[in-house]
């Protein structure tokens, strides 16, 4: 798994943001959002910085980080693929779509490929039940998904990344 580098500038930026949040009540959540944005993930080293600033124990912070799926402990890939496993999508067969994507990329849910290009997540309802089943790639929603359509979209990005695409 790729390790993140905590540069001095990024650390100072985070500390500055946390100190702003500290003025208001409930500073942990906004601090975590900033940390996720600045570093792309919130590993223990980053949690230690937040712990120092907010005087909240690392264990408590880690509990919150691992509770919300928005936060991650390890860096996510360049492309984040989410397959909705909400009720509507699930009954319409989104599990098969998820399995297809995991098989193609040779990773499990929540993991990132070795080349750090793709992360796969099982998401909750994305609010597009009318289009069920849906999956998302980098925030864009693809509706009425089938195993074939997901495979095709995925192939398109892989080709693009590996430079074998034809324009």
């Amino acid at each position, binding site marked *: 798994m790729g390790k993140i580098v905590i540069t001095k500038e990024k650390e100072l930026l985070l500390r500055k943001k946390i100190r702003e949040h500290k003025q208001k009540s409930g500073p942990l959540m906004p601090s975590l959002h900033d940390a996720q944005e600045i570093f792309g993930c919130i590993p*223990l080293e980053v*949690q*230690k910085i937040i712990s120092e600033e907010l005087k*909240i*124990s*690392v*264990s*408590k*912070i*880690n*509990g919150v980080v*691992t*509770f*919300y799926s928005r936060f991650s*402990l390890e860096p996510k890939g360049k492309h984040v693929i989410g397959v909705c496993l909400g009720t509507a999508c699930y009954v319409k067969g989104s599990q098969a779509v998820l399995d297809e994507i995991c098989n193609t990329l040779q990773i499990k849910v929540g993991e990132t490929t070795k080349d750090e290009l793709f992360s796969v997540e099982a998401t909750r309802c994305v609010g597009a039940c009318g289009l069920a089943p849906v999956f998302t790639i980098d925030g864009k929603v693809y509706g009425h998904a089938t195993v074939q359509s997901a495979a095709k979209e995925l192939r398109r990005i892989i080709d693009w990344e590996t430079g074998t695409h034809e324009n």
Partner: protein
Amino acid sequence: MSTVKIWIDNQEMEVPSSYTILDAANDADIYIPRLCFLKDISETSACRLCVVEIEGLNTLKNSCTVKVWDGMKVHTHTKRVNDTVRNNLKLLAANHHFECWVCHREDNCELLELLRRYNVPNTMGENPTFSKKTHYRNISKSLTIDTSKCVLCGRCVSACNYYTGLGILDFNQRGFDTYVAPANNDFIDDAGCIYCGKCIQACPVGALSATSDEDLVIDYLNNDDYYVIAQIAPAVRAALGEEFGNPIGTNVEGKIYRALKKIGFDDITDVNFAADVTIMEEGTELIERIQAHLQGKEAHLPMFTSCSPGWIRYIERYYPEYLPNVSSTKSPQQIQGALIKHIYADMINVPKEKIKVVSFMPCIAKKDEADREEMKDEGVRDVDAVLTTRELARIIKRFGLNFNNLKDYKPESPLATYTGAGAIFGTTGGVMEAALRTVKVFLDKEDEHTIDFTEVRGKDAIKEADLVLNGKTYKIAVVHGAKNFPEMFRRIKENPNKYIFIEFMGCEGGCINGGGQPIVSSRDRETIDVCQLRAKALYTIDAENKIRRSHENPNVVSLYQNYLEKPGSHLAHKLLHTTYSKKEVFGKK
């Protein structure tokens, strides 16, 4: 105080309006089951076992957090309540790893007690299609976390915060994946834990335990090549009896000696002796520092005591800048071990390689302390194995002894003699009081009568007192319970020259309430002042002892005459003193 009238199971009662239903039921002696509830510490209503039916409400309510109101009619044992409790217990059982016969909570597991009381069949847990949770183990020298037994009540999480203010344990992940551990299940030894063991005592089941060395000790005993020497800590005798049904605060010292002899220890000694030696070394160190200070030299005052390994772990991690202030004297356990291996071995003519020192401690941090690199001399450990009071009880049970019928015994070893000062080491203020008794005589030749320093006794979080030496008044302080340490440091920082001597103990109440002591059920904790009862046992030993000052212990005197010359001598420094160093939290990567 306003009161309200309520009915519980048709019993009319008048209770304060600030009460919860559970408080009212407790007062009226009406039993309501509970698992996650620890008065004042954990009131999270997570287990859903204390549910009751309230007339006029559709759903069952948890009695531990719902406040009473006027005219409330509560039913605690209707069929609906019983069925719900039973179902909830079934769900808890389904994910619990049952190995009760090897579990240290075999005799006082709160889950097992409830499963028995509600006659719960483990149909779900024994169904092979039931998917089990992922389990984690996190094992250090002192503490074992085994989430396969965890019921996610959160009592340890609350207790960790409440007693230490450090918040080492917390919930990780969510939903089905939730488990309790340090952040990210990082190695507990590295997570800043001080091993006070309050989590173990809060746990209703055996998910948290002291890492057991019972089998290692039994191996020592069965090996004829080894000469196995036991040493028991002051606080053990005040608590072990509880494991065999005696009231809290029963002194069972004589029975422990007899039990150890029957189990097969070759020699039995008492840490109280080493406590007396500690006072000689620590007292001398304090006097040296005061004199250096009076001469205007850098003396690192106030001096801090060093007996509590939980406290040592704390300062090494959270206030390393104050490490020079800590007395370099080893803790009594390590002093006894060093004396046995390097001096006593010659006295009894046994090569030190053949000696195994086993200590019985009220503490789990002692296991970690005995394993420290600083506590080895040329690879020879001062102490080879450390068992807690609970483990001692288990060993006595494993050997099939009828503890309560044992006749008292007094070991003959000179290392088992002690003064009243050594006995009170096990309670908060005890080390301070013992030190003052000796230091005062050493410095203030006229003062031969002061023995009781009652101002350092008792359960106030931080106790301060004046100490008059040669007409000059100094301030001393006693602090216990890790959560109070930051306040103590705040006072030191505010007024750096105010104090000369401070006693720190990691556990609230001192060793008598240590993490290795017998577990008091969550219901007894609400009504009984455990610390006070156990402390009383130690103060009684002290009061009944003819010799009550450490330096008057005849065997301590001859130890110095024959071997160590004087406190702080070269040999004493080599054997009885140690060093400390700054430690990183979550530092290993």
